[in-house]
């Protein structure tokens, strides 16, 4: 089954870290990504730019409405994701627990709607 691990983290927390701590953080993410890749579970992964770069779009009255900013204005925002392919939820949760995002933020695990039902 495919699962999306969504990393929610406090905005701006990264910028406040010392360069040494940032380096450590990067190393932790690289190691995690590498472990996922080696196990054959990695299907995709990306880090997202901060929500100051976000734009939302919706169609209202037939016209597209484009707004600056994220969908929800919350303290924690989606900061990145991993798409993984594993046997079951327990396996997905085990990977989520090992993700550095679980230590500095929250990781939401969602099964991907893959089969037509």
């Amino acid at each position, binding site marked *: 089954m495919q*699962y999306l691990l969504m990393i929610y983290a406090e905005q701006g927390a990264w910028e406040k870290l010392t360069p040494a701590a940032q380096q450590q953080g990067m190393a932790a993410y690289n190691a995690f990504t590498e472990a996922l890749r080696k196990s054959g579970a990695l299907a995709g992964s990306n880090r997202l730019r901060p929500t100051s770069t976000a734009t939302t779009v919706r169609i209202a009255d037939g016209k597209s409405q484009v707004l600056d900013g994220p969908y929800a204005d919350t303290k924690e925002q989606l900061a990145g994701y991993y798409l993984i392919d594993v*046997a*079951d*939820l*327990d396996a997905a949760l085990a990977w989520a627990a090992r993700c550095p995002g679980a230590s500095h933020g929250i990781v939401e695990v969602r*099964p991907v709607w893959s*089969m*037509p039902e």
Partner: protein
Amino acid sequence: MLGEDSDRQARGTADVVARRSYGKLLAFLAASSRDVTAAEDALAEAFAAALTQWPQRGCPSNPEAWLVTVARRKIIDAARRRRRGEQATVELASIAEQLASVAAAGEIPDRRLALLFAAAHPAVEPGIRAPLLLQTVLGFDARMIASAFLTSPDAMAKRLVRAKSKIKQAGIAFAVPDRDELPGRLDAVLAAIYAAFTEGWTDPAGIDVARRDFTQEALFLAQLVAELMPNEPEALGLLSLMLHAEARRPARRSAAGEFVPLSEQDTKAWDANMINVAEALLQRASTRRAFGRYQLEAAVQSAHVHRCRTGENNWAHVISLYDALLAICTSPVLRLNRSVAVAETLGPVAALAEIEMLAADRRMAEYQPYWAARAELLGKTGAYREARQCYDMAIGLEHDGAVRRFLQRRQAALPS
């Protein structure tokens, strides 16, 4: 006449299989298809088919294998109707293969433990785990469960459906978790079983048939887990705790149906065999040297039994057990129970001081034993007016008529 006879016989056989094997059959079907709802529907259809076919063709020699074979076909048909594409074909093949291997062997493997762990998975809402165990492993219907858990059948049914769909769609495994994850996960299974047990326990007279059954069935589940995981001390501890409580059931009501508090119970009315089994289980658990909540609570029960039988004052020991429990989990109920032991050793004033710490806890405002304990202690210190008020609160909160009458008698016995 013959038709009626074979009809009755078919119905009888189906009833026996349903009672004896429902959980086992459902667990097997659910674990192989990873879909509890589909397994339930298929099994229900298989039972319906049995009731029409068995009277005509006679009961099969292996009714369980017959039911599994029919249910299996229904699951595969239903899945085929829903799914298309290559992946679905592969998946269906794997389901079919698993189910077929069993049908061939004629022996249905016991996957109830796997179902227990799926139903009590941390990804399932905690409040619905016990009802889910009752419905899936034990076959209780949602209406009966709703009445025991004091919610509407509709609401209960909805929550059960939601939980089953979460299990399916989130891909929760039907498996006993790995060794390193087991302690936390087993705890959720044990907690759900204990919740089912206490639901039944609220009707100690056993008048409410549904609730009495919950107690028996929860005991059966605890036994099952203890048998399947004989090296897990907390599984043994929970079974010991439940057997201790069950052993005293005959003494908890007088012949007239009135509530009898522990200190006044006739120890000869206790089930001595059951107590022996409970003690042996606790002994076996303790050799593993991994103490936990259920073993400690069973030890408290064991201490009560010893004191009531021998008259030996062991309240200090009870306090130390509660201290150990409170070191593991903070619970106002544990604190309250500890204060009862404190009253026996240091007197009512010291116990009242302990209870005072709980007064700010909002959960206590609606907890009958809190007000009853407070009333009892106030009465002992001579604060009769306050004691009466606390009894009023306790009486107002109690559902069980026998306990209510007991509290009313205690209140009436206070000097004016």
